[in-house]
């Protein structure tokens, strides 16, 4: 069908057909991915439902090491960890679920619950940071590319076809510009989030120097956020929610973003 339309299309319909085809392809790919069967995930779910949280965590953990990943995998893993009393690791995996899908409602709720229980410290976010964080970086990249091409095709049409210089064309270009700006902001937010890490130890002193005897700059409960962690052996240098830079034990902090399995 797509081939037929290509064969018959005129130049003015090219961009419209291309965008429609791209959207269809994305949905098709997503549908294929969603339909994929991963038995380890179901095994973990069954173990969790049976109250065997340690076994469920092991099943989810294996899948986490081998892949494929999904936001729900990390969300369920976080639940198992919480049930086992590991608040810091649970908060970390909820953060991972949200990094993959920022709109994940259960992960957001549970993360807030865990942080309230531990008294975790987090970075203050403004309304626009929250707004930009709604879109995950992958969706932002697709939106950004789509908007960029819409803009380019509209511009090309305006240049080459005087008949295309309509109000609708201008509205479409403006929409593409706004969408592109939002996508750029969301990608920037994603970049910042990639440098985020979570305190997984119960209560971690952040010190002004990498030594147990150094004065404490702050005390970070489990689930607290830190930024831009730079590991230096047993100690990691990072930015605390207070804005100060300090050292925490490397074993007490873990990055949210994981390298591909």
């Amino acid at each position, binding site marked *: 069908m797509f081939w037929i339309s290509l064969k018959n299309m005129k130049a003015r319909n090219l961009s419209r057909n291309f965008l429609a085809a791209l959207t269809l392809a994305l949905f098709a790919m997503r549908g294929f991915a969603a339909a994929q069967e991963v038995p380890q995930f179901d095994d973990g779910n069954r173990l969790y439902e049976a109250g065997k949280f340690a076994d469920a965590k092991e099943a989810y953990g294996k899948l986490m090491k081998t892949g494929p*990943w999904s*936001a*729900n995998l990390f969300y369920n893993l976080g639940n198992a960890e919480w049930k086992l009393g590991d608040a810091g690791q649970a908060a970390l995996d909820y953060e991972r679920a949200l990094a*993959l899908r920022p709109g994940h409602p259960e992960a957001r709720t549970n993360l807030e619950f865990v942080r309230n229980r531990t*008294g975790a410290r987090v970075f203050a976010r403004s309304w626009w940071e929250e707004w930009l964080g709604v879109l995950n970086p992958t969706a932002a990249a697709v939106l950004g590319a789509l908007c960029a*091409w819409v803009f380019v095709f509209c511009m090309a049409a305006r240049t080459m076809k005087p008949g295309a210089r309509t109000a609708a064309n201008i509205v479409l270009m403006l929409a593409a510009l706004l969408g592109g700006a939002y996508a750029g902001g969301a990608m920037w937010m994603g970049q910042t989030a990639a440098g985020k890490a979570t305190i997984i130890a119960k209560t971690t*002193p952040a010190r002004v120097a990498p030594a147990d005897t150094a004065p404490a700059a702050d*005390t970070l409960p*489990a689930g607290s956020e830190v930024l831009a962690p730079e590991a230096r052996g047993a100690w990691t240098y990072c930015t605390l929610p207070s804005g100060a830079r300090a050292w925490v*034990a490397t074993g007490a902090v873990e990055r949210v973003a994981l390298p591909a399995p």
Partner: protein
Amino acid sequence: MAGLLALVSHRALADDVSATAKISDAETEVGQAVDFQIQTTGGDARVPENIAVDGLSITYTGQSTQTQINFGTVFGSSGSHMQTLNTYTYSVVPQRAGSFTIPALQVEVNGQQLATKPVNLNVGGSTAQNSTGKNDLYFAQLIIPKTTAYIGEAVPAEIKIYVDGRIAAQLAEAPDIAVDSCTMQPLTKPQQTQVERNGRVYAMVTYKTALTPVKAGTLKIGPVKQECLARIPQKRRRGGGPFGNPMFDDPFFDDAFTMMGPPQKVTIETDSTNLEVKPLPSTGQPESFAGAVGQYTMTTTVKPTMVEAGDPITVTARIAGRGNFDRVSGPQLTDPRGWRVYPPTAKFSQDDDLGISGVKTFDMAAVPQEGKTAAPELKWSYFDPDKEQYVTLTGSSVPIKVEGQIAAAPTPAISTPANTTANAAPTPGAPDIMYIRADSGGWGETFEPLYASRVFWMAQAVPLLALLGFIGLHVRAKRAADLPARRRAEWRREKDAAMDAARRRGVPEAELYERAAWALRLEAAAQMDRAPDTLHAAEVLGARALGAETAERVRRLFERQAEALYAGSSSGARPASAEAQADVLDLIKKYEGAKSVS
């Protein structure tokens, strides 16, 4: 002339060398400058730069040279004699009253060592002298409010520098304080005010600091020395006045004609003072004492007040008062059992310039290991130098609610990199997390952003190709729309080429008619938008409104072209005459100029 200069030079070299010292006035008053001069003859001299006399401030102000040529008998021989007199001037400002002697000074003149004679100066005390016989133009005080202190006690100190309001003084950076066996806080920024003392107006500069003795015994503090650059006013000496008019001796003119002396470096110095330093009592020293000396109070707060065992609470202790805050460390727990405590963070907010008064706040994270009904009680000790005893402060007991129990063994007070595993269990029955998701929600997600992958950028080739295709199709369509115009342009170029060939000298007759007929066909084809090789002679004739004669000539042209082409006439090979060429070219011009017939 040259001989005269040589003679003068010869005489000058033969001068005697001498050095004498004199003073402009042998009697003066405190603060009134007089000039002290060393005069030398016989060549360049080296005079001392600094002359030290206790009670006199002597500053070198410059040199002058005078040359005299004397005519007459010198050493028994007649002729001219040249003498050079160098005068080195110093400004002498008495700082106190008394009799002073500027000693004999060593002067080197033309390589010879000479000595001046001592010079006496009597200084009266009427202008500026205080009861102690010290200088009243500028002086300083070191004020320490105590004579005894304990080791570690912060003792405030104040330095006040007074400079007569008529002196233009520029103080050096900060005074130098001679002090040993104690630490000193950095001096505060200088505060300048005007004060009146003994009927005189002074500019007063105040510095503050705090001294903390570190050793028992008698501690000598001071003297404090402040260096400054001062221009001291010089009163006009009476007995003459300007222009020798006695009218100017009137006291009215004292201030009006006061002159500022040259800038001179002066040192303003305080007396030293003693501080008796006592050691802290060794008996009765509390366990929680860490060296704080002063007067303090302590308050404690706790938040949150309702937690589960294993969840940290923050205990805040505020220690306020006056003393050596640099030795104020965090309080201790009265009973640390059942608590895991982390080193506190400290924040000091000072109330004064010296940092010996204020509030130091300690935030301490404490993790209950079992059920508790009250926050940990804090204790903290200091030594009160006024009461001369140790004091232990205890924070009030804040009620809190801690539920649950941690099964883990007691852990050390300070966590280390190895001790980092969280272990808090949710309480049964309490609000809990949301349930797991049974669906995967879509596999294949990754933390690597899509725009960082190569596939994403390769995929952009698809819309790029589409865009290029779109542009290509547009260009092709545009070109198709322009085909007739391009074809006409091509025919015009062909016609121009045919005309050029027809104009060529010695062109064969057959070729001349062939080219001319082709030029007419191209002209008609451009008008009719038809291929030129499909046009007959009649169609070419019909395309333009021609006169009968011109039409006949065109017809004949086509006939000759046909003869040359089909009849095989041998005459076609011979060169065309110039008349024939001109006739053909004229015909084409007429055809071009004729009106088109649609």
